[in-house]
C-alpha cells in the first residue's frame, strides 16, 4: 500500500476550463442587452430548457449567491439586506442577492437586469417570496412554475396541473419574447440537457472508486454548469472531458485525498465560505467526502424524463426533485447512496438558510443510524453568511466525529 507516501494529487485540469466557461457565460449575460438577447432569472431547480430553446439567457441568482459566498462577500451583503428590513433568519442567498440587486455589490458587480423571472417551488417556498421581491424591484413579469410537493407520491391531479403549466410556461415565454418556440430546437435542447445530466451523474459515480478521484467539494465547483448551462452543447462537452479525466485518475489510482482511509457523505448545500477549510480539515483525517445529496439533485429527474418527449415528460422530472419529496424518501436516497459509495460516516449541514433541506435531518439521521450503523455529524451554519459560523466549535466537533469514524472502522477491521 502507498500508506506512507502522502502526495497531494495534481489539480483537476478541467478547473481552468470551468473558469473560462463561467467567465464567458457571465460576460455574455451581462452584455445581453448589447446583443439584443433577453435575460431570465430562474431558480436552480427551474425548467430552464425552454429558455435555452428560445435563446433567452438564463441567469441563476442561486449560482450568484454561491459565488458571493465563495468570495466571502455574503456577510456584508446579508448585513445590507438586514438594514433594508430583511430578517437575518431568512435564506442567505435571498438576502445577499436582494442586497446585490440594489447596490450592485458582490464579486461581479451584480447580475444583469432581468426581462422576466421564473420561480419554481420544487426546491422551496422561499423562492416564491424572493422572486416577488425581485418582480417588484425590477418591475419584471414573474412566472411561477408550481410543482406540488410529493410527500409520498406523485398523484394524478399534480401531474395534470404541472402538465398544464408546461403549456402556460411556453405561452408566457412566447408572449414576453414575441416569438414562437421551435419544437425541434426544444427537443434538441431537451436531449442535450439529459445528456449533460447523465454525464454529470457518471462523473459523480467515479467517486465509487477507491481511492476516489474527486470529492464532493470538487463537485460543488464543477456543478456550476449543470445548474446554469444544462441544455447546451458546452455543458455536454465539458462533462464528457471531465468524466474522461476522472476515469483516467481512477485508472491511475489517483485519489483526491492522499491516503484516503475514510469515506464520508455530505448532506445539504455547501458552506460556501469554508469549502477549502472543510476540505483540508477532512483530508487531514484521511477522509474523503465521496458522496452528497446536493450535487446529485440535478440528476434525479433522469429517471422520469422521456428523451423523445421532453416537454411532455419534464413535468414529472421537475416535480419529483430531491427537495420536493418526503423526509422518508430523502432518507432512503441517502441510505442508498451511502451504500453505493461505501461511506463510513454522514456529515449533515444543518443549514439555517434552508429550512426545507434541514428540517427533517434529525429524523433522517435516526433512520440512517438504524439501518446503517454509521456515525453522523451535524454542523450548523448559514451557507453564505459567514458571520454565523463558529470555526472553533466546528473544528472540535469534526475531530470528535472523526475519532468515532476511526473507532468504528477499527472494530470492522478486527
Amino acid at each position, binding site marked *: 500500500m502507498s500508506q506512507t507516501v502522502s502526495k497531494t494529487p495534481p489539480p483537476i485540469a478541467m478547473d481552468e476550463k470551468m473558469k473560462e466557461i463561467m467567465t464567458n457565460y457571465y460576460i455574455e449575460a451581462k452584455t445581453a442587452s448589447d446583443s439584443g438577447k433577453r435575460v431570465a432569472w430562474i431558480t436552480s431547480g427551474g425548467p430552464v430548457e425552454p429558455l435555452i430553446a428560445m435563446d433567452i439567457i438564463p441567469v441563476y441568482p442561486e449560482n450568484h449567491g454561491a459565488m458571493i459566498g465563495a468570495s466571502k462577500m455574503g456577510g456584508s451583503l446579508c448585513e445590507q439586506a438586514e438594514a433594508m428590513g430583511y430578517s437575518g433568519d*431568512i435564506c442567505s442567498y435571498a438576502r445577499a442577492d436582494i442586497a446585490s440587486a440594489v447596490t450592485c455589490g458582490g464579486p461581479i458587480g451584480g447580475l444583469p437586469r432581468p426581462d422576466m423571472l421564473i420561480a419554481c*417551488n420544487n426546491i422551496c417556498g422561499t423562492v416564491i417570496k424572493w422572486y416577488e421581491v425581485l418582480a417588484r424591484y425590477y418591475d419584471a413579469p414573474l412566472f411561477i412554475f408550481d410543482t406540488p410537493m410529493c410527500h409520498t407520491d406523485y398523484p394524478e391531479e399534480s401531474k395534470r396541473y404541472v402538465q398544464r403549466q408546461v403549456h402556460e410556461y411556453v405561452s408566457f415565454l412566447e408572449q414576453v419574447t414575441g416569438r414562437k418556440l421551435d419544437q425541434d430546437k426544444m427537443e434538441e435542447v431537451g436531449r442535450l440537457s439529459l445528456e449533460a445530466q447523465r454525464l454529470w451523474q457518471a462523473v459523480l459515480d467515479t467517486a465509487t472508486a477507491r481511492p476516489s478521484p474527486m470529492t464532493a467539494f470538487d463537485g460543488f465547483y464543477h456543478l456550476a454548469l449543470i445548474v446554469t448551462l444544462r441544455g447546451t452543447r458546452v455543458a455536454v462537452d465539458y462533462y464528457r472531458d471531465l468524466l474522461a479525466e476522472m476515469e483516467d485518475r481512477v485508472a491511475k489510482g489517483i485519489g483526491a485525498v492522499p491516503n484516503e482511509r475514510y469515506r464520508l457523505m455530505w448532506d445539504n448545500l455547501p458552506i460556501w465560505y469554508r469549502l477549502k477549510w472543510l476540505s483540508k480539515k477532512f483530508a487531514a483525517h484521511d477522509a474523503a467526502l465521496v458522496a452528497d445529496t446536493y450535487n446529485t439533485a440535478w440528476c434525479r429527474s433522469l429517471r422520469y424524463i422521456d428523451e423523445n418527449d421532453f416537454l411532455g415528460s419534464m413535468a414529472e422530472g421537475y416535480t419529483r426533485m430531491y427537495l420536493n419529496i418526503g423526509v422518508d424518501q430523502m432518507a432512503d436516497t441517502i441510505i442508498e447512496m451511502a451504500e453505493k459509495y461505501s461511506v463510513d460516516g454522514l456529515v449533515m449541514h444543518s443549514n439555517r438558510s434552508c429550512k426545507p433541506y434541514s428540517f*427533517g435531518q434529525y429524523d433522517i439521521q435516526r433512520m440512517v443510524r438504524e439501518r446503517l450503523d454509521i456515525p453522523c455529524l451535524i454542523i450548523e451554519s448559514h451557507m453564505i453568511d459567514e458571520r454565523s459560523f463558529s470555526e472553533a466549535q466546528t473544528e472540535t466537533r469534526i475531530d470528535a466525529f472523526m475519532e468515532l469514524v476511526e473507532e468504528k472502522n477499527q472494530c470492522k477491521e478486527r
Partner: protein
Amino acid sequence: MHPATATEKGTFMNELDHFQEAAKNPEGYGKNLKASGRPVIGCLCSYAPEELIHAAGAHPMRLFGTKEAIVNADGHLQTYCCSLAKGVLENTLTGRLSFLDGAVFPHTCDTIQRLSDIWRLNTDYDFFADVVYPVKLNTQSALDYTVDIFERFKKNLESWSGQSLSEADLTRSIEIFNSIRDQLAEIYRMRSKDPACLSGSLLSSVVKGSMILDRDELPERLFRLRKEIEEGRYAVPGNERKKRLIVAGSLCDHPDFFSILEESDGVVVWDDLCTGSRYFDETVDIGVPPLEAIARRYVERRRPCPAKHLSNTARGEALAAMAEEHKASGVIFFLLKFCDPHAFDYPYLKEYLETRNVSVTLVEVENQLPPEGQLKTRLETFIHML
C-alpha cells in the same frame, strides 16, 4: 375569571366564558368532545378545509403552539424553527393531543411542509392527510387543481369514516361555516365601529375559541354573544378614544398583547392574522358545486396568506385598503421569529404602507412576548408618534 377546570355547561354566566375557556384549554375541550363520541381532526393552518371535515362527521380543531417547555420537539426540529410548528409537534409528542383522531396538513410554508413529514413519521393517529395546495392562486389551472385536491381529501375522509359524503352534507356544513364567518365578521365590524364594546384580548379569545368550539353549536353561541356585546355587557369605556390600529402576521396566541396595547393608548380595530380575519374572511358561495365553491374561497380571497401568491402587491393593497376602511393610522406587524413568508413581506409592506401615510412597527416574538415593560414602552412610543 373562571378556573381553567370548569367546563360543564351552566356554570358560565356569559356566553363569552365558553370561548375563553376553550381558548385557554383547547386540549381539555377536545378531550371532552372526543369523549362524547365525536372524532376530532387537528388542523394545521387557516387553509385547512374545515367544511369537509365537519361534513364527514368529525370536529375540525385548530392546533396551536404550546406555553409548556419544549422537550421532545427539539429532537426533531432545529432551533431555527418557528414556535408554532415546534409547539404543535411538542404537544403531539408529549401526548397532549392523544384525543385526536388525526390531522390535516395544508401545504403552505416550508416549515409546515416538513412538519407534515415529521408528524407522519412519528405519530400513529388513525387519520392523516396532506392537502397539497397550489402556491399560486391566479390561474384557472390552480383553481381546477384545488378542486382536485379537495376531491382527494374528500375521498381520504370517506375511506377513513366509512361513509360517503353527500352534496347535501357539504352544503349543510358550508352553511354552518358561512354563518360562523359572517357573525365573526359582524363582531369585528361592531368593534371597528365602537372599539369600547369589547376588549381586544376578549375578541382574540372569541376567534380562537371559534376554531375550537363545536361548530354545530357555534352559530347560536355567536348570536347570543353578539346580543351580549350589543347590551354592553363587555364594554371597556375609553377604548373609543384610543389610537386605531391594525395587527398583521401569522398567529397571535397572546391575548396579553392586546391588553398591553390598550394600556398603551392603542386599540386594534381589524387584523390580518390567522387567529383573526384570515379565519373568517369571505364566505363560500351557495349554488355552486360545493367543492368548487370551497376552492374558490381559498383561491379568490383578496387577503391571502403570504405563503400564497396572488399578485406581487396583493397584500400591500389589501392592508392599505383595510387601514383606510377602518380608519387605522398604524399597522403593527406581529411576527413569529423564523417565519419566512411573513419576514419576506415585511420590508415591502412597511414601505408600501408608509408611503400611504400608514405608520408601521414590528414586534417579533419567539415563544413568549417580550418583557411587558419593554413591550409597553415600544408600543407607547409608536402610538404617540401617530
